[in-house]
């Protein structure tokens, strides 16, 4: 739902929220942990994991001139801290600072009630037309409070890539796959992990693309193949996690799963919006019609996403000498 209208006047101006200071059990978090441009706080920046409570000082700027002239009364600005993974929602009332005209407050985040990434935003609520407690505005984008990040990175920007020896490396569960050049692990709630097998001699050298144009093209082609495998694995993992809402409609998952589905579904089921596509996908999985065809579409979408056709063409151009030149 991307266009929403209200039956009463709401704020047109922007509401901005900013984290100004964070303390973990009373000890100040380094400012390096607060990424203003990324709107992200890395709570593990100091390498401390044993804290119980984070006190997050925030400041919100509301369109005050609009509010002063508007039809709203008993205006309240609250900070909302939520995390879908643990279904926690904490609401904290902010107070208006007379000097700066901004709304300020400290949100307390209990470590035990959160799992990995919490969202923080502000909501503006007021009495409109005699009815109290109506939402009239809020911040447009959330701040992300990341419990595990050591640096404030908004996007869990890519799956992790790990180079290990599958035969006798630290991950014993990889041993059965010792002949595989790579393995994509999408299990668990965190980002998928791609394991590159160091036991396959020359793989990392090949992927680094050192050498002439042929070596580069080969590296790009191998990279594209891995990438395509990753997208395919991620897609299936994401689709497998789709749950139904109260009306029985499949609900879009969150996090990287949402990213994967939003990116790939238009290629898998063209002409359908991502939410329609999930419905269609779930229906086919349950009822079985067109299921095999859909598998091919997933593979196609992953290959497209990985630019496999382009890299293949490049590799062929670089390795196959044009006719008549070898004499």
């Amino acid at each position, binding site marked *: *739902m*991307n*266009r*929403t*209208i209200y*039956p*009463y006047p709401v704020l047109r101006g922007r509401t901005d929220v*900013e984290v*100004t*200071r964070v303390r973990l059990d009373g000890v*100040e978090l*380094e*400012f*390096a942990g607060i*990424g*203003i441009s*990324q709107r992200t706080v890395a709570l593990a*920046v100091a390498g401390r994991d044993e804290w119980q409570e984070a006190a997050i000082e925030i400041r919100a700027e509301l369109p005050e001139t609009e509010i002063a002239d508007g039809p709203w009364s008993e205006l309240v600005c609250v900070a909302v801290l939520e995390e879908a993974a643990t279904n926690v929602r904490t609401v904290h009332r902010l107070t208006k600072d007379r000097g700066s005209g901004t709304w300020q407050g400290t949100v307390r985040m209990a470590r035990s009630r959160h799992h990995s*990434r919490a*969202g923080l935003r502000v909501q503006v609520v007021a009495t409109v037309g005699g*009815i109290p407690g109506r939402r009239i505005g809020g911040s447009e984008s*959330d701040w992300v409070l990341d419990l595990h990040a*050591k*640096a*404030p990175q908004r*996007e*869990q*920007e*890519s*799956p*992790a*890539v*790990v*180079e290990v020896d599958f035969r006798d490396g630290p991950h014993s569960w990889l041993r059965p796959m010792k002949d595989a050049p790579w393995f994509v692990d999408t299990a668990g709630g965190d980002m998928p992990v791609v394991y*590159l097998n160091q036991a396959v001699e020359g793989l*990392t050298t090949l*992927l*680094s*693309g*050192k050498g002439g144009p042929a070596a580069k093209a080969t590296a790009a082609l191998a*990279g594209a193949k*891995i*990438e395509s495998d*990753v997208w395919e694995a991620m897609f299936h993992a994401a689709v497998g996690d789709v749950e139904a*809402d109260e*009306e029985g409609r499949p609900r879009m998952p*969150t*996090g*990287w799963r*949402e*990213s994967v589905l*939003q*990116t790939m579904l238009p290629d898998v089921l*063209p*002409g*359908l*919006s991502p*939410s*329609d596509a999930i419905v*269609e996908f779930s229906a086919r999985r349950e009822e079985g019609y067109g299921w095999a065809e859909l598998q091919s579409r997933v593979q196609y979408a992953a290959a497209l996403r990985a630019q496999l056709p382009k890299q293949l063409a490049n590799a062929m151009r670089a390795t196959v000498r044009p006719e008549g030149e070898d004499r």
Partner: protein
Amino acid sequence: MESGEEFGPWLGRQLRRRNMTQAELAAEVKVTRAAVSAWITGRAQPRPETVRQIAEALSTDLGTVYARTTDAVPAHAVQWYHRPAHSDGGREFGNAAAFAFEADLRVLAREATQNSLDERHDPTQPVRVRYTLHELTGEHRRAFLQAMQWESLKSHYAAAAASDQKVGRALVEGLRELEDSETLLLLRVDDYNANGLTGPEYDDGRFAAVVRRQLDSHKVDNRRAGGSYGLGKATLWATSRLGLVLINSTLSVPHEGRTERRLIGRLDLPWREVDGEAYAGPAWLGEPDAARGYEGVSRSWWGIQEETTALHLERESDDPGTSFLVVAVHDAAAVAAGDDGLHAMHEKLVDSLADDFWAAMTDTASVPPLLKASVRTLRNGTELIPETPVSPDQRKPALARALRAYLAGETVDVLGVRTDVALRTVTLNVPPLRAEGKAVGNTAHEAVLLVTPADDQDRTHSEIVCMRGNRMKITTQRPRDLGFGVEPFQAVLLAGFATARDGEDVSRAEAFLRASEPPEHNRWEWTEELSVAYARGAKRRLDEFRASTADALRAVVGNRAVPSAGIATELLRERLRFTQSPVAGRQGTRRSRGYPVVDDVDGEVDSTGAWVLRVRVAVPPSEDAWRLSPVPRLGGGRTGAGAAVRWADLTVTENCSFDGDVLVIAPGVRYAAFTGITDPDTHPVDTGMANIGVDVHKAEEGAKRA
């Protein structure tokens, strides 16, 4: 005899002005020449009856001699003196120093203000600088031109403009503008609590450095400032379309026993021939000198209030300092602004001062600033734009905050809050001077690095501003290897006197860094001066200084959490990066959608409590007709899709038709619009309580209105 100025210097000047020798006066008042000499040097005072005779000898009244606030006789009329051509026939076509600068108010503001800062008189008080733009028209313009004897200059301008040299062409333009526009724009640059143009008329001193010479930087206080009034003063003349600047100075040290209203004008023209006489270039407005060797040369005169008022040179207090009046000031950018030129120039001056002198203007509750600056604009003597004080926070709020925290001693070790300022010391090892021999080792100077998060409005950030002296910006440094995704920051490096400390190491560091600057004072690097004056390894000390500055910065802002991985891993990670943010916001704007979406909804609640919605649907081009179910949803938001409600009525507005509740859009159509009225009976909550939106889905077969 205690009023006005001292008797001795006053009498000496009266004799000089009348071209009368001490012996001649002695003869007239019947005393010995030695007695007159004793009066002039202040060793003796004349008796009252002798004073009467002196008054007669000077053909003036007794009151004038006792008051000594004016000269005894009307001075020789103030006039323009044009330097005769060089006897060797050499011709100069313009002031070389003036060509080094562009006619730009930004440059003028920077150079003139730096001069004022270097000439600060009372070091416990700020030097105050005021820029006044003054537009004259009609009678005001005429009166001013008359006061500066414009008529007598016309023939010189005409001759100079006739030359085909660069400066001649610029003059033609300036003269044409003066004739055509009927306005004259003056820029006055005042400083207060500055030294003023002290010193003798022709010999070494501030006055001669500014008025008589080019490139003389009058290095007096060599310890702190790099010499004031150097190349920079030429910008005053360069910004005048007519090459003409008038000066009024109040001196901090009396000259000829006086301090107030030392007036002089200077004109820079190229070589020219007027009425058969050849002239070298410069001309001065002043009193004809009577002293031997300088006969006829215009020298500065001690003016009266009527003169300074007529020349728009009256100063607002007797605080020492200098007023420069740039006649017919010019700025290319302001010309481009057209009618708004005055406002544009005013703004430009304010911005330039804020940009270049935020550091000198920064103060705390207990530490005064080094500089206060303001800009105002007048038209014919009345205020057009009120005086605008320039604030250090105006353009560089974060940098000013950093410096303020340092001056107030409120810096921290680790950045916690956004307004925190972290302090690190950076050591500069100053090598000994060659002259000191091998016995002397390096002197360690603790420079100060201040780091604070950048403000959102900062246009330039993530670089180190390096300063010394009067908090003068020398250069900026952009350290590399800070790691990926470092937050924007502001940093200042204070070295030498900019640290606001004093001591042996401070003055040594100051001198060393100054020696490492090229004439433009914009880098710290190897220079000829450095290698001549300092022991071996000076360049290396500078490199170390730069490296340890970068290290100190990295320790504060650098991202240490980035692990280094193999190239293959990095390449793969790069390729696998999601293009879309996976966070909860869900505002991914997808430009080329492959599916239908509702792209606009507007509407209101009617009297029955139903929503009347005007909906527009965008569809991708398709060969088949689209069959879509539009579904109104109440109370949707970030946590859920909301509750679906039913339509009571659907009406086509544009490009579509309805098959029951199914919206049918013909092939090839990009947009369709309809109006829908919801059925309030199906609303799960009161209509007024919840927001509404519309979804479109592919229609399920058989979904028709019941």
